[in-house]
């Protein structure tokens, strides 16, 4: 299809005739304002209107947000089984322009092998620029953009969100963006089934759902037990279970250090568990080193914080100090990495 138009022309703006101006222009303007004053007792409820009150009295009235609206990223998990859609593939972490996503891959506590699930997933909401790239690149449709925008808080640090705070049920997303979810629902669940197969125990269950799933499994086991012979299968505590907010920072540091180490070892190609064994080993070694450096730095950081007289409130001060330490640790790890490279 090609349309050929004749091109437009150059128009010299008409500045208005040099007529005698005795105030008629001002009266015209006043008439316009008068018109608006008269019309202001009705609402401007239609895009084709140009008069009427267009204020939305926000806390009382709310505009329905369009589906595409994006504010901050959230993580989805299945309503019934509590399985998270995220497989810790690091795509979002790589694409994030301000680098605020930090992921720690879950590992099998017995074999140490990587499991397609995130042990911890941290997004620094305070630095997030809401570009939506993470949701776009996510191959598992796990990370989506939330519609919740009332995030203001007195504590800056509260805006660093961990997995428990990020997780939302699929039904929530389905409610805010029905057509978007309908498009990807089938493939997302198919992919989820695949990754669930490779998950063990409670790893990959959304933190909110852990207790519930435990109870469900216990119930299932009980009913099984009534059918078959009684077998004791105590559930092991997993990393996802114990995630109090206080050691968030330490985790962040660990993740950063580990990631740095991993990048170092495998040129970014070893994030999948099917990586060659040699590389994996090197990565592990580097991770341990980095973690040690991080720990050291964290300790020193905490020590200095306790000395500091300006932080009398123990929890807040500690938290902050820990975070500071985390950053330091990350830097130390990076440095270590660089040095290692140079040598």
């Amino acid at each position: 299809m090609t349309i050929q138009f004749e091109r437009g022309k150059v128009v010299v703006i008409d500045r208005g005739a040099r007529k005698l101006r005795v105030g008629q222009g001002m009266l015209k303007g006043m008439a316009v304002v008068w018109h608006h004053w008269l019309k202001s007792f009705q609402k401007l409820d239609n895009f084709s209107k140009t008069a009427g009150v267009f204020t939305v009295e926000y806390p009382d009235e709310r505009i329905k947000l369009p589906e595409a609206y994006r504010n901050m990223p959230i993580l989805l998990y299945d309503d019934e089984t509590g399985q998270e859609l995220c497989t810790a593939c690091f795509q979002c972490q790589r694409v994030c322009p301000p680098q605020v996503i930090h992921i720690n891959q879950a590992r099998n506590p017995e074999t140490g092998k990587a499991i397609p699930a995130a042990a911890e997933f941290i997004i620094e909401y305070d630095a997030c620029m809401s570009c939506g790239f993470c949701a776009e690149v996510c191959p598992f449709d796990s990370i989506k953009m939330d519609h919740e925008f009332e995030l203001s808080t007195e504590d800056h640090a509260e805006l660093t969100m961990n997995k428990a705070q990020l997780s939302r049920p699929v039904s929530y997303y389905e409610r805010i963006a029905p057509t978007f979810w309908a498009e990807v629902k089938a493939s997302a669940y198919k992919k989820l089934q695949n990754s669930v197969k490779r998950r063990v125990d409670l790893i990959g269950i959304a933190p909110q759902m852990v207790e519930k799933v435990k109870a469900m499994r216990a119930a299932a086991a009980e009913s099984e037990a009534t059918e078959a012979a009684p077998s004791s299968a105590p559930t092991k505590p997993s990393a996802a279970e114990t995630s109090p907010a206080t050691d968030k920072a330490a985790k962040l540091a660990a993740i950063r250090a580990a990631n740095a180490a991993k990048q170092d070892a495998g040129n970014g190609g070893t994030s999948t568990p099917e990586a060659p064994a040699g590389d994996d080993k090197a990565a592990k070694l580097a991770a341990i080193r980095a973690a040690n450096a991080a720990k050291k730095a964290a300790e020193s950081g905490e020590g200095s914080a306790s000395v500091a007289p300006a932080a009398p409130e123990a929890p807040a001060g500690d938290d902050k100090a820990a975070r500071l330490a985390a950053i330091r640790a990350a830097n130390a790890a990076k440095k270590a990495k660089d040095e290692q490279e140079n040598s």
Partner: protein
Amino acid sequence: MPSITATALRERMERDLPGVAVATRPRVVEAESKPKAKGKHAAERPDFLATNDTVVVADRLRDAAIYLRDACGYTYLSDIAVVDYLDDGLFEIVYRFYHLDDGDALVIKVRVPRDAPNVPSLTPIWPGADFHEREAFDLFGIVFEGHPSLIRIYMWDEFEGYPMRRDFPKQGDKYIDE
């Protein structure tokens, strides 16, 4: 109508202003860029200096610019961009001129060594070059000779160093060398 291609400009300039243009390797446009080997160290250094545009001697910049304006009718100076080729040890300053009827830009480039980045200023001829040149001075440390007030434009006056140079540290506040 007034479109002059980059090669035509070169030829005209060599004819009318001998000794202004510098010989350069032409850039061959690759059909498909080969995916590079992954890793921190790329296989070879990219060849930045090959170009199809006219590169002029720094001292004769004004002649070239006035030639563009008066002989070619490219009266509109749109942009001055500085590129720091650290590995080649030089700054490239890209001047972009337009003809006010229509058509693409004509580009002339000036290459100066990194340790003596002196270029004649175009501000006396095009006052519009003022902020461009001050920006280039502020961020790259290019000295435009003859500029009426070559002072920092973005950074504060006491700032040391030129933040857009590639050897300016990304963290901290001193050069790597120190």
